[in-house]
């Protein structure tokens, strides 16, 4: 059970990471594919070998699986905590995205239609 809960925690975390990677341009990948084009036949031949040998589940053994799980659970990004200074957070408050209305906001007396201005002068302290 413990392993299960900790890995599911990690799935969530790794999703976050993937989310950030969407930012990277996809073009270099396409270029790689293009380069591979002339050699495609050769690749297929190489790829065919494992299948003819009929070793199902040859990918990961139980030991390896545990190794992978251990790797992920011991290396969670929780150890390097994501911290921000007050000044940095306040700087981000003025970015246009931070002033957009959230997609899901309940209709409620404390909820405003338009964003209010930042409360306080940054130089107060």
């Amino acid at each position, binding site marked *: 059970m413990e392993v299960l809960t900790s890995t599911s925690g990690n799935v*969530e975390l790794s*999703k*976050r990471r993937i*989310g*950030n990677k*969407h*930012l990277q341009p996809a073009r270099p990948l396409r270029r790689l594919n293009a380069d591979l084009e002339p050699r495609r036949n050769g690749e297929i031949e190489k790829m065919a070998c494992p299948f003819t040998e009929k070793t199902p589940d040859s990918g990961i053994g139980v030991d390896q699986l545990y190794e992978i799980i251990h790797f992920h659970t011991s290396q969670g990004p*929780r150890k390097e*905590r*994501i*911290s*921000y*200074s*007050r000044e*940095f*957070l*306040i700087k*981000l*408050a003025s*970015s246009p*995205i*931070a*002033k*957009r*209305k*959230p997609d*899901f*906001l*309940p209709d*409620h*007396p*404390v*909820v*405003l*239609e*338009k*964003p*209010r201005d*930042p*409360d*306080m002068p940054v130089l*107060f*302290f």
Partner: protein
Amino acid sequence: MMNQCDQARDGDRDAGDLETSTGAREEKSDGDGGPVNSNNNNFNNGRRKTISPGAGEHPLQYNYTFWYSRRTPSRPANTQSYEQNIRQIGTVASVEQFWKFYSHLVRPGDLTGHSDFHLFKEGIKPMWEDEANKNGGKWIIRLRKGLASRFWENIILAMLGEQFMVGEEICGVVVSIRFQEDILSIWNKTASDQVTTSRIRDTLRRVLNLPPNTIMEYKTHNDSLKDNSSFRNTKITL
């Protein structure tokens, strides 16, 4: 600067909103806790979808959920009323998402009546009985009127920015608007962990820029359950 009120411990502090003075002592006298029951409507009105940072946004160490609660003066408080009066507003996973919600919420200093904003780690209900809170407690800082909005923002930013350096200990923060004062609280998981609680206290002094003579009070949620109050009978430190 701070409300150095001796009368703070006279036992009727957080029950004393005049709007509901009759029978206030018997009522659940404050807004940040109450018995859990199975009527969970208000807790489940948010989407169950996983919240994650958008592309290019600055992720937070934890997701946080905004809550709002208000005591309804007309109805006498009972065991269910706290849970029924507390409402989820939204959950954020990034700095940008936080600002979106925050900028679309009324300033706490502009609220009237007996009401509270809560910002808690996702999955932790702002209730004494929650699994994450049941062994915990909170630091309390009483503010004179007019300071709540600024202090609320600063305590939130310190929490989101992971300034407390106490591992997983922080559960959430609350600003409580009351009749003659406003109260800032920060909840942690383990009330008996003195290293943690004193580190939280010292960090609070720093990030809120509190004068050295500011009174800070600590109260375990267990004690709150016993006397059914948030802000009475606290332990004082200077």
